[in-house]
């Protein structure tokens, strides 16, 4: 931005940052497809490890799908800020006359759309392969939509904390996994409830509440963490 150009509104800055990140994510479709492939392959491992008994698989399908979704989000979180940190664009963001939390949130939103959101959309496919009863499918998708939002936001805090550390990947999982426990519990319980014919609305509401709460709190933590990472 040249010095005399007028300052964008916060909203415009957010949108611009969102689309900038979206374009850079779309530039490498393989990176978008990889987490989905990972999801697919790990789901395949479970029947191989546990045996093909459809009843047993169906009984633990909610847990499998959710744990694998959590692992997939962990995997992609590691790279969330890496390229921006390496090429210096994070430093530019930190210098920009907007709150860092808002700009970072735009990136995280783009990131979620290409990972968690897609994962939630394709999850019924894997659920059917595991024999999850049909009445659980909608709940699975909805729970994963809210749940991956939480996972992505929490993962982004971890990523912001570890981006300046070499080999931060394993550390990242240590930081994030304990924080993700409630998301996993609410998500699997919602799906299990729906499969048993109950009403999962309260669990989905809890997940949505967690997602909204994280939406408010985690960007501040990301901003603070990124400034620490840039200083170190």
């Amino acid at each position, binding site marked *: 931005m040249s010095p005399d150009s007028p300052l964008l509104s916060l909203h415009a800055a957010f949108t611009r940052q969102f689309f900038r990140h979206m374009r850079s994510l779309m530039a490498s479709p393989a990176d978008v497809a990889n987490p989905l492939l990972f999801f697919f392959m790990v789901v395949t491992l479970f029947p191989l490890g546990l045996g093909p008994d459809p009843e047993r698989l169906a009984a633990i399908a909610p847990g499998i799908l959710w744990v694998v979704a959590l692992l997939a989000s962990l995997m992609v979180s590691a790279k969330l800020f890496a390229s921006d940190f390496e090429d210096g664009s994070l430093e530019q963001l930190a210098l920009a006359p907007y709150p860092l939390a808002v700009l970072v949130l735009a990136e995280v939103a783009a990131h979620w759309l290409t990972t968690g959101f897609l994962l939630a959309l394709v999850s019924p496919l894997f659920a059917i392969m595991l024999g999850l009863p049909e009445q659980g499918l909608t709940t699975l998708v909805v729970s994963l939509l809210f749940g991956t939002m939480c996972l992505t936001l*929490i993962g982004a*805090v971890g990523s912001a*904390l*570890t981006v*300046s*550390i070499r080999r*931060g990947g394993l*550390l990242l999982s*240590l*930081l994030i*996994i*304990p*924080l993700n*426990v*409630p998301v996993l*519990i*609410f998500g699997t*319980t919602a799906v299990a409830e729906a499969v048993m014919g109950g009403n999962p609305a309260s669990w989905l509401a809890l997940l949505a509440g*967690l997602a909204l709460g994280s939406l408010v*709190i*985690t960007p501040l*933590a990301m901003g*603070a*963490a990124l400034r*620490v*990472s840039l*200083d*170190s």
Partner: protein
Amino acid sequence: MWSIIHKMGSPPWFFRFSGTLVRWLLPVTISLLLVGAFWGLLVAPPDFRQGNSYRIIYIHVPAAVVALAGYYVMALAGAVSLIWRIKMADITMRAAAPVGAVLTAIALVTGAIWGKPTWGAWWVWDARITSMLILFFLYLGVVALFQAYENKTAAARACAVLSLVGTVNIPIIYKSVDWWYSLHQPASIKFTGESAIDSSMLYPLLLMILAFYCLFALTVLLNMRADLVWAHRESSWLKQLAGGA
């Protein structure tokens, strides 16, 4: 009020002050531990169902209580260090994390040892055990994050952010694990701690909890002093102290 806080931020003042504190706290902690252990292990009556095996409660419960409180101490110190950039708060946080992790580990191990005769299994996925395990991971995360940063000022601030996020999350984790447990388990296994505890067993327990708080404070203070000595090993005030002593 403010002058005390400013003094707290000065390493030489804190070093002298903590020295006095440690001299008082050390005998108090040791006598509390001895009296509490003697009372709990020898004087208190055996449990009518568990016999003598329940006596591990005098280690297990204090460790668990202080481990949880320790996380809040750490997070509070983290908040102070983030907001006011007070160096001593950094050092407090860094000193509290490993102590809390060890206390959590003690609570987990003694819980397993207690579980074997009581429930017949070393490990049961009970709500409290699971929450404690997650607390252990949270502590390990802070310790590991601190180790990973080369620049220790940045490390302290990163750990402060992490422990604050953890603090917001801990009540949610506890509640969710509680629900998870009540959904998946029939209420066949129950902690004896739930039922009313007789005062002849309760008083030594309270004494041990107090002793463990003192022990926590003492260990954190000693840890901080060790950190200070290392950080200021070249500075003149420390050399003067060492020369004078």
